[in-house]
């Protein structure tokens, strides 16, 4: 129990009359990598966004480090410092340089000294091979570069958990690998706890400790990663895997 970072119990989510998530329950242990798989519209993105307070929920509980989250604006604002998130559309702030994008939240939200964060930011940039771009503006970067910066920006907050929502979905094929390698390294080297929504099956097979397979807002299958790709338990998951053709 002690090493459970995130625990979701009986989560239901509605948009008006339409139910987007049905009775979702799962947990995430420290250092674990969970990937959410499933056809588009299955609720993967809704689920991962709910875990960061971007989608409100009423029914069910989400607990962070053993504490049930009271979903007020203020609580989420504090929690988001520990739950980092990266999006499909990178969303760097176009009005700030690469460095200022990274420094903004650590210095303003966490009030850490600028020099200290800057040193760390440069190291992180080095790791993603973009140290030469510190003073560039987002418009001068390629999609793959922007996404790597967005990951660094989230990491600079020292999050306990990272959420990745289809982070390679709008990248050109040749950019995808660089981004995925960084995520893989985060798991292998830093043992970062992560939840990943992706359509890259090869990548998911390599990185997932556990797979949640969703369809129509329900978890159909919750299986250890290796086992899911070798022997999916449900027929729907088999069909899904064979349709992905990887």
């Amino acid at each position, binding site marked *: 129990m002690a090493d459970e970072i995130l625990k979701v119990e009986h989560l239901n989510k509605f948009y008006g009359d339409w139910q987007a998530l049905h009775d979702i329950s799962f947990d995430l242990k420290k250092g674990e990598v969970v990937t959410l798989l499933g056809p588009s519209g299955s609720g993967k993105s809704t689920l991962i966004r709910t875990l960061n307070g971007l989608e409100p929920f009423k029914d069910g509980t989400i607990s962070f480090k053993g504490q049930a989250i009271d979903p007020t604006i203020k609580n989420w604002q*504090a929690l988001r410092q520990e739950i980092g*998130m990266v*999006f499909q559309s990178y*969303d760097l*702030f176009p*009005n*700030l340089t690469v460095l200022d994008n990274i420094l903004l*939240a650590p210095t303003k*939200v*966490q009030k850490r000294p600028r020099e200290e964060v800057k040193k760390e930011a440069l190291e992180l940039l080095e790791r993603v091979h973009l140290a030469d771009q510190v003073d560039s503006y987002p418009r001068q970067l390629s999609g793959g570069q922007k996404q790597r910066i967005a990951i660094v920006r989230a990491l600079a907050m020292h999050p306990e958990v990272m959420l990745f929502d289809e982070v390679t979905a709008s990248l050109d094929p040749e950019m995808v690998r660089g981004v995925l390698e960084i995520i893989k390294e985060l798991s292998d080297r830093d043992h970062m706890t992560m939840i990943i929504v992706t359509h890259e099956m090869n990548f998911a097979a390599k990185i997932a400790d556990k797979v949640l397979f969703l369809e129509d807002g329900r978890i159909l299958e919750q299986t250890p990663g290796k086992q899911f790709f070798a022997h999916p338990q449900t027929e729907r998951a088999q069909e899904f895997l064979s349709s992905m053709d990887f």
Partner: protein
Amino acid sequence: MAHSGISVLFEGTNFVRLLGGLWTAVWIAALSLVFGLILGTIFGLLRTMRNRLIRFILLLYLEFFRIVPTIVLLFLVYYILPRQFNINMPATWMAVLAFTLWVAAEFSDIVRGAIESVPQHQRESGLALGLTQWQLFRYVLLPQAFRLELPATINLATRVIKTTSLLMTISIMDVINVGQQIVEANNQSHPTGVFWVYGLIFILYFIVDYPLSVWAKHLTAKQKEI
């Protein structure tokens, strides 16, 4: 004996007096813009917040200025302040007041529109980093909104400058009022002077406004490229 009308422009201090009148118009415009943009930014921010009462009041405020012509605004301030509230200030300050309130109304709409057109993704990625609402405004939305609203703001400035031509109606010694005086004083000696004086003022306004509107157009074109 009638001289050629154009020479009236350069007789005595006429030309300098006209430029002095233009200067009055320009500083009234500049001051109203500074005050109006500050007030308008605040109103615009308030209009993106959730409080319905504040939003409704500010909408009424904006609609009032959308309906009432600026010349009528000037008269409202000019007649009602002294007679109704016993506030006596120079006409120039009344003009600054009327223009400021007008600019604030127009600019609040520009600010609101610009903030709302910052993509939803930008808000979310700011929130995901743990920024508070205020930090989100201060570091993400306002700077981006500023860039989006710049062309509209410059266009508003050109309109304020053009609207200073109405100052003569509340007896301010602006460029047109000075022009009228010169025309009247020289009517006998230079019957065609009126054509040249008003022609010159026409050109002066163009010289002030045209570069600004070229700048606004240039910025708009640049934003479309991105």
